[in-house]
């Protein structure tokens, strides 16, 4: 069980991710709808795991990832994006993301990614 911050610009997707995580026994401690909010929420909530969409207004997920890792090099961030191009996956992992889940996803895949990030 982990305290998770869910970041996605689509409220629908935040619901889907939150539902999956709750069913997996995790606690969703906060949600954010863009990269700016994500960084602010990360500092305020200090979640154990963060799921991060890439395509978002204001500040995209890759920029937010880099800022979060700069703030906390041990941050456990899982990218969760429909933009599954290889370059995006590589850039995310290089920037410090623990995993990359491509939408549309299976609930199990998200839970597994969180489990691995905690291990």
């Amino acid at each position, binding site marked *: 069980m982990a305290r998770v911050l869910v970041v996605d610009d689509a409220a*629908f997707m935040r619901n889907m991710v939150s539902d999956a995580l709750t069913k997996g026994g995790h606690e969703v401690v906060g949600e954010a709808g863009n990269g700016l909010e994500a960084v602010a929420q990360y500092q305020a909530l200090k979640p154990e795991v963060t799921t991060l969409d890439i395509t978002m207004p204001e500040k995209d997920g890759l920029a937010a990832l880099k800022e979060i890792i700069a703030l906390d090099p041990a941050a456990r961030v899982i990218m969760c994006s429909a*933009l599954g*191009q290889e*370059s995006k996956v590589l850039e995310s992992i290089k920037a410090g993301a623990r995993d*990359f889940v491509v*939408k549309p996803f299976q609930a199990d895949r998200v839970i597994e990614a969180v489990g691995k990030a905690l291990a």
Partner: protein
Amino acid sequence: MEAISWVEALDCSAAAETCSVAPPAWLATVATSRVAVEMRSMQPLTSTMLAESPSNASRVLSTVEEADSASLRTSSATTAKPRPCSPARAASMAALSASRLVWSAMLEPGSNPLAGLPFPAVATNVSYVDGVTGGNVFVMTLEGARRLAAAMMGASEPEPAGDSQELTELEASAVSEAMNQMMATAAAAISSVLGTEVEIGTPETRTFLVEYQTGNAYPASPHMVRAAFSVCGEPCRLVQLVPNAFVVRMDAALDELSAETAPPVSGAAPARAAAAGIVPGAPSLAGIPVRVWAELGRASMQTADVVGLPHGAVVELDRSPDEPIDLFVNGRRFATGRLVVVDGNDWAVRIESVLGPSSDSSDTEGEVA
């Protein structure tokens, strides 16, 4: 890499067929057809979708179907995308299994891509923001949007909305997400053709109550491709707004691709190209690899019978030995001929007749190879 370029090639061949209809269409359709491919990959019973298509659209779309089956076989090579299983994915499968692609066409330059729709209508716009330029508008009836949103949330029916002519925030978000996922797939497909990163912007969903509100909603575009189909039983349209720069980029990329993959062109190729409606002299189309297989006959069986087939069982096919066999190219029945042996040890097919482009006899039963 072999598998990847092959899928791209199939996408191109889908586009190639529109070439004889309107020259810029084949370029623009590359991305759009890929979207159709993705939508169709959500749907197991693809063949019925073509049943009522006008023959022209069917020519294009049946090839898309082949690209679909190809992408299913090679999906792990093209993207790291998992196959469907999430509630949203399962729901969108249900929602889209009711869809049927009915028409694909070029629109007049500068025309309103939303003209002639039933209103109120819900439109979601996703633009390319990096790598290429242009926009994509997914538009459907308000009722269709509600049903799609409900399906994506795992509900069979939308919540009663009374007289409301607006989507709830959550419904709009679900429709946006559907378009986001479709366009991310399109971006990945274009990205692999161009060999460069292609990014999409965030989706923007709007409701239009009457047609005049749509007049200046989207920027005028020199080329537009429209694919019309139905989602959850409601009419729906996907319009790709194509700037000239996009056409130039795709043209150059496809030429490069064909230069890399072109096998030596055999003597028979030009005639076949002409028969398939491909404009001669289009260099980017000449070197696209296609899959060719011959079909001896078919049999219809129940799964239990197939599973229970013992060694030595005889499966009867629906064709007598004196009938010609069919030759398929990328899933399209292309010619009929006779099975012969060449050089004493290789099977070959001697062509008896090449079917014209108007022949609407795509492989509707599944593949044999």
